[in-house]
């Protein structure tokens, strides 16, 4: 899933200072699961924003808490059109994709990001999320036993570990295990350590960075 975290509350109050009628738009997908932008967070943020304005003084703030199934599809944003009439600004509690879809769907609406979008990852403990994929466009996990060195090695090394691991921990961040030692142990369990002798060529960053935004067209789906 896409993992995101809330932006600081004072950032949002500052951004919304000029507006009287503000929508707070959540998303029921990734950001809801990582407890950053679901219905509950939307409701809480909307209440907090109104309360802050009352305490601080100034024009009264009216918020509209709204949550859609997926902010990254116009189909789910379209039904908000009526509700958003007369709304000046919105805080999107979607990921970076959601914020942009919301802004594109409603050109008259000033959209402020309510989250910082961090990574493609998942929860590893209560309140802890970790990154697993850099979305590089060319998966190498068949060579590395299902452990991504691009993401989980601090230097993104593709041909084995640097010399700095100490007791299996990364030299850059001792909280993290050395990805290459994990890969080695896993390959050994499957008797596939010979894969470590394979020279992985330099990565084709065109697949990761494209020429600006990447675009995927699948003719068979288009029909």
């Amino acid at each position: 899933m896409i993992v995101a975290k809330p932006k600081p509350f004072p950032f949002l109050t500052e951004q919304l200072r000029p507006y009287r009628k503000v929508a707070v738009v959540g998303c029921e997908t990734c950001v809801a699961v990582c407890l950053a932008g679901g219905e509950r967070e939307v409701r809480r943020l909307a209440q907090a924003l109104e309360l802050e304005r009352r305490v601080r003084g100034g024009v009264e703030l009216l918020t509209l808490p709204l949550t859609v199934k997926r902010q990254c599809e116009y189909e789910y944003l379209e039904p908000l059109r009526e509700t958003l009439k007369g709304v000046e600004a919105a805080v999107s509690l979607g990921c970076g994709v959601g914020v942009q879809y919301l802004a594109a769907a409603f050109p008259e609406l000033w959209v402020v990001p309510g989250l910082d979008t961090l990574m493609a990852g998942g929860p590893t403990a209560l309140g802890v999320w970790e990154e697993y994929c850099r979305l590089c466009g060319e998966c190498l996990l068949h060579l590395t036993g299902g452990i991504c060195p691009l993401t989980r090695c601090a230097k993104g090394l593709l041909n084995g570990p640097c010399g700095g691991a100490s007791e299996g921990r990364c030299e850059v961040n001792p909280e993290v295990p050395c990805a290459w030692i994990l890969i080695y142990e896993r390959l050994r369990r499957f008797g596939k350590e010979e894969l470590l002798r394979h020279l992985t060529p330099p990565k084709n960053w065109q697949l990761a960075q494209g020429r600006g935004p990447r675009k995927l067209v699948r003719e068979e789906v288009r029909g």
Partner: protein
Amino acid sequence: MKSGSRLERLLSQGEFVVTAEIGPPKHASAEPLIRKARLLKGYVDAANVTDCQTAVVRMASIPAAVHLLREGVEPVIQMTCRDRNRIAIQADLLGAYSLGIRNLLCLTGDHPAVGDHPEAKGVFDLDAVQLLDMVRRLRDEKVFQSGVPLKGPEPRFFLGAAENPCGAPVELRIMRLAKKVEAGADFIQTQCVFDLECFSRWMESVREEGLDRRVYILAGVTPLKSARMAQYMHENVPGISIPEEIRERMAKASDSQEEGIAIAVETIQALKRIPGVAGVHIMAIAWEEVVPEIVRRAGLFPRPQLPEETDR
């Protein structure tokens, strides 16, 4: 001959070589480089010029190496993957060769997070293995990384790589070493050796793989300056462990610098007896002035000369 560098020629003649390390200054004057070069001249066969080691900004290694060349010390430039993508690396290496640099140590590089600009973007477009492969192909196949041919003389570097002999697990480290040799390493400079037992075991694995016949192994040696330094390195430098016996010797010594020199000399003499070790790489961190004494006391002075040098 791949490069015809002094280092390559001496190694191919079977000489037990001595290299040292020079860290460029954190300013724009060549004065410290010139001073260190004059200090080391005649005591080492070549000197490494680091490439912003520990991710701290210093004078770049290629121009620093040119100052060494002018002083008559053969440089080994270090090139890391941290700060440059494949375009910048190849461009810099064409320039380095044109300036007379012939030895190149290919490194992944320390992560920016450990240096003095922790907010910098780490490039790591390539890793050290891919870097070696790229530079070997520039030399032997006369093509850039993309496969596009060069339009004139190719850069012919003598290629080095680094290895940590006491890293675990050994099997994984040996596989990575073999990969570096396969990719193009002609010589290896190891992380500093304090634990001779672990180094000997590693050399055994190196010989078992037949790697000592395919690559020159230069063992790293670092003279300890104080008991505090020994303790600090043991606890804080990734991939280095200093046996208790050595830390104790340093702690008990009345003259810790003398003790550090003595340990370095003993280490070199022991390394020289290990089959497959082709030389030593002395990394006297911020203590370059001690290198001549270590070389002398280890019985490695005078250094061999090439025929045209003795003619002069």
